[in-house]
């Protein structure tokens, strides 16, 4: 009966493969653009997103049931970026030449809001990306980041306050309490 089991496992794997290929095709550009906004370097964003999708495929049985698989990919890429940044800071303590190149290549990355977003602490940045750029609700954001809804709300509040301080010219209207 071992052969039957193997055959069935092969079919299970193919079913997953079909699903993942479709998910990847549908989500890859969107995830890349979101990560590119967050990190500012095209080549780095490519690498981070590719690695995040690789991990998604390695854990597809888990990721496919996630309420927002694309957010899982973005969050993984941003976590990888934090690790990459820590390593790079130890190895090459120089300015961010890659970001300057990226900014001139993609004018959309040049605006003050995107720059201010990148200056936020990692957790605040992640919450803003998931809540406002991916448009996830608080509960899904909390599940994706492994924190409580209250913590998400707190990071969002602090992140927005940071952006407001950093960009005095940001046009908005204070909400009535």
């Amino acid at each position: 009966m071992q052969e039957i089991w193997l055959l069935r496992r092969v079919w299970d794997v193919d079913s997953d493969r079909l699903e993942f290929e479709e998910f990847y095709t549908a989500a890859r550009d969107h995830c890349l653009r979101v990560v590119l906004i967050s990190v500012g370097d095209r080549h780095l964003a490519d690498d981070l997103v590719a690695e995040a999708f690789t991990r998604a495929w390695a854990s597809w049985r888990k990721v496919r049931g996630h309420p927002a698989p694309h957010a899982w990919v973005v969050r993984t890429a941003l976590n990888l970026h934090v690790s990459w940044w820590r390593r790079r800071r130890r190895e090459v303590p120089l300015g961010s030449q890659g970001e300057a190149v990226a900014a001139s290549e993609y004018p959309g990355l040049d605006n003050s809001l995107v720059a201010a977003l990148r200056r936020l602490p990692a957790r605040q940045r992640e919450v803003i990306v998931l809540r406002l750029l991916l448009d996830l609700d608080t509960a899904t954001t909390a599940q994706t980041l492994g924190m409580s809804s209250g913590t998400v709300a707190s990071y969002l509040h602090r992140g927005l306050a940071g952006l407001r301080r950093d960009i005095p010219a940001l046009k908005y209207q204070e909400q009535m309490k």
Partner: protein
Amino acid sequence: MNGTSLSDAVRSGLAEARDSLSTVHMTIPASNIMARADQARRHRRLGVLAGAGGLAAAAVAVSAALPASHHQTAGHSEPAVRLAAWAVTRLADGNIQVTFREATDPAGLQRTLRADGVPASVTFTGQRNPACRSITFPAPPFSDKGAFRGPLTKVLSFGGPANTAYGYPKDALVIHPSALRRGEGIQIWTAGTPGAADNFELHAGLVQASPQCTGS
């Protein structure tokens, strides 16, 4: 004039930045991504089926699950033990079920599917038909909650735990012709060692129908 809240202003500003990146595309093929992960978890890799006894047992298990009243067409392999390489069955709900045991006689399978009204291209050479153009899905169905389910998986289902509830055996590819849109067809191909009839990975996807690819 209505003002916007801070979060709305940030949301709108970030969306604008994202939309300005519409020329940015991820060019790495899905197969490369999966190959990287598969290498890392080699111990979980599957794909080798050996032994005619096992294949015969699997074939019996599948045949037993098929209602006898269904119209069925089968292909044959050449080796000494003459088993049906694949079987195409029209199910009562209008869907078409393809059960594979060996990757042989692709022309016969292609002919059978086309005769059943499915524009199809079938290759068992380890390569896709180069005349076929795959269909991609630029608009991600991100609003979906729960497991990802996009246009492709509405047309094609591999047997598996999620589909046994619909009565599909675990070892079959099920085509849902009613979900195919005009101008779409199906491509079925194998990866793995060309010519190794009992050692293959089966792939399927949507393509643009054309005379060179799907025959119509």
